């Protein structure tokens, strides 16, 4: 028995000694080998140390920058996984994110998930949707459970800074509104002194509500639920006098109430709510990719390129359109995307106007006017930096 123990201990000891000695000797040879295993896709850059890699990769102007983050980058992870994981709203928010009768996700936010998948895979179906409540969403993103969060999340300084997130361009400019019953006689926020108000927890809405009422010297009782579904149900049952969320959300929720005609949305906007995709801080390339995927939908609308007339534009002689569609230049490579990522987005999902009209436009029950969400050329706020 003891002999065994001694043998085992001796074995361990010799192993440790060998490992220590071996490491010291082999150090110079193992060090260069490591990058080769972690970055197999850049065989030319691998043997050389990182600083010399950038000038070595002369073929692609952005080769040096893309080689560094790609090693453990989000894009590489998504590509090797074969699917994008997109965090979306967990409660039915028709027009933005909801599941139709056939079990397919539909909505404005969903289409932007599809745009990202289309740009990466040339296939908008390669997505796993991860339904998240307002409380879960940022933790899910921080912990890397999802690749991108497209869940009408408001871009604020606090979240951008303290939460360790980065916001891609705003896809929907919104403002907070208030819904009340028509028979309540409420016309302004001042009429709501002492009212009970349903609001979803973990939202900017919750904070704005408190700020607005405090600033006006009004009191209210909050009734707070972790998900939008129960919040709306409580309001519908008359457990609250008012229901507050982003105006787009109110319009969408109105269609789900048991008797929509009994309710109205007050003519008051309590805040700015820029909604857009968010990614985790720490991978600038992935952030850039998501950012330019959104810009591509703006730019396509500006050029008038739709999923219908895309093929005509592919024969275009106009240099800037040729660059935009990836027919010339290597614009995509710099952000870790294929050069024709804009073509993929437009073919599968369409430009911004198509996405908007399909989900929120005149032919839908919501019929939301474009308003601020028009191109800058039409007096709106949508503006894409140049694709060059």
């Amino acid at each position, binding site marked *: 028995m003891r002999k065994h123990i001694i043998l085992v201990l001796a074995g361990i000891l010799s192993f440790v000694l060998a490992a220590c000695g071996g490491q010291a000797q082999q150090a110079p040879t193992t060090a260069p080998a490591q990058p080769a295993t972690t970055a197999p896709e850049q065989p030319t850059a691998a043997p050389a140390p990182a600083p010399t890699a950038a000038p070595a990769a002369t073929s692609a102007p952005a080769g040096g920058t893309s080689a560094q983050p790609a090693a453990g980058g989000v894009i590489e992870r998504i590509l090797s996984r074969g699917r994008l994981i997109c965090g979306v709203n967990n409660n039915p928010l028709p027009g933005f994110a909801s599941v139709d009768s056939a079990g397919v996700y539909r909505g404005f936010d969903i289409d932007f998930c599809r745009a990202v998948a289309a740009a990466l895979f040339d296939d908008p179906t390669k997505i796993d949707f991860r339904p998240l409540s307002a409380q879960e969403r940022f933790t899910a993103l921080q912990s890397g459970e999802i690749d991108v969060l497209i869940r009408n999340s408001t871009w604020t300084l606090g979240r951008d800074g303290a939460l*360790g997130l980065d916001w891609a361009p705003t896809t929907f400019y919104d403002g907070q509104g208030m819904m009340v019953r028509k028979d309540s006689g409420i016309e302004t926020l001042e009429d709501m002194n002492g009212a009970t108000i349903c609001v979803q*927890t973990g939202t900017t809405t919750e904070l704005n509500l408190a700020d607005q009422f405090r600033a006006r010297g009004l009191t209210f009782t909050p009734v707070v639920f972790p998900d939008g579904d129960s919040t709306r149900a409580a309001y519908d049952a008359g457990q609250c006098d008012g229901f507050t969320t982003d105006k787009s959300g109110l319009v969408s929720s109105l269609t789900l109430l048991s008797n929509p005609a009994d309710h109205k949305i007050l003519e008051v906007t309590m805040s700015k709510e820029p909604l857009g995709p968010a990614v985790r801080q720490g991978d600038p390339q992935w952030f850039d990719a998501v950012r330019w995927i959104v810009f591509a939908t703006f730019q396509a609308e500006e050029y008038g390129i739709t999923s219908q007339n895309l093929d005509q534009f592919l024969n275009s002689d106009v240099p800037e359109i040729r660059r935009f569609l990836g027919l010339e230049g290597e614009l995509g490579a710099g952000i870790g995307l294929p050069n024709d990522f804009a073509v993929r987005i437009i073919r599968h999902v369409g430009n911004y106007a198509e996405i908007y009209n399909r989900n929120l436009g005149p032919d839908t029950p919501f019929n939301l006017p474009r308003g601020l969400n028009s191109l800058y050329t039409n007096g709106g706020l949508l503006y894409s930096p140049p694709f060059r």
Partner: protein
Amino acid sequence: MAVGSPSIPPGKVNIPFYRDTRIIAVIVQIVFALLVAVGIWYLYSNMMNGLRQANLLPTFSFLSVPAGFPIAESVIEYNPSMTYGWAFVVGILNTVRVAVIGIILATLLGLILGIARLSDNWLLRNVALVYVEIVRNIPLLLQLIFWFSLTRLFPRIQESIDIGGLIFLHNRGVTMAWPQAGNDFDTWMQWVYGGIVVGGIFYVVRRIQFIRRDRPGVALPYAFLIALGIAFLGFLVTYLMNGVWPVSLSVPVLQRFNFEGGITVTNSFAALLIGLVIYTAVFIGEIVRSGILAVSKGQREAARALGLTPGQTMRLVILPQALRVIVPPLTSQYLNLTKNSSLAIAIAYPDLFYVANTINNQTGQAIPVILMLMASYLSVSLLTSLFMNWYNRRIQLVER
């Protein structure tokens, strides 16, 4: 070396250290502890690395920042301009409130249930059986949501069910008339304190007398009666002196949106309390039943032979002995109830878990918030079991 060996006495053989099991045992433990420490250090540095990359380094500085979010119910003063730290305290107190009331009610209901299951009455016994079997086989979360949805069936606040003008039932909870302190409340409170002191003195004196005579006796109820009598006397005296009752009944009056005056128990709190009590009482009932069954049958027969009524038998003979069996498992049920209250988030009651979640969501400080959350639940649980263990030791002493 072989020459020197005979001089070593037998039994004091020099064993090389690597063959000495005592030393090996120590070495193995040191190696294991080192491995654990290295493992923890690796996980910790890995976490810190990830957090640093995400610009999320843990810090507790957020605790002094204004929270900005409202909390519907609070035992202490709270508004959104107060700090995250204070909001956290509000959450703790909300959890403690539902836990304490829940534990008291669940114990009473469980006791009744446990005794009913052993009753000679066929109907009572089987009603209790059906109740136990139904309730313990349905998940608690489902029950909480059931009770909460049930409150939706009540009318809107403007059309509340009026019970005698004092109690109003509506879909936001129950509003009741409630005593309210008047101007002379402080004067009367002096009488109350006086009553408590006199009652206390009476109790101590009586106990000393009983001990001196070495005879059992009852002192507590009389002490209570004396204290109550003095308080009541003071109540009348303050009224006669000023013509105003020191405590009056505040009757709720419906305002535009809510009731003014009285006290309102929100539907969230009520649903959580009812759900927790009904669910936990089942398990407590089974514990009580097992405790009663553990008392030897001879005790009951002996008590009957002495001429005690069934009620007296239960109260004076069976239950005191059953308590020894009941208390240890009862402690876990109390802890379960406290921990289960974290399901409140589903029905909009702002308990500790809910508040901590909101703080985490707003500040992004997941690690400090989770640590605080764990520390809070841990200390509440440890305090509960500390108290129960003390009580357990006390009743075991009585046994002799």
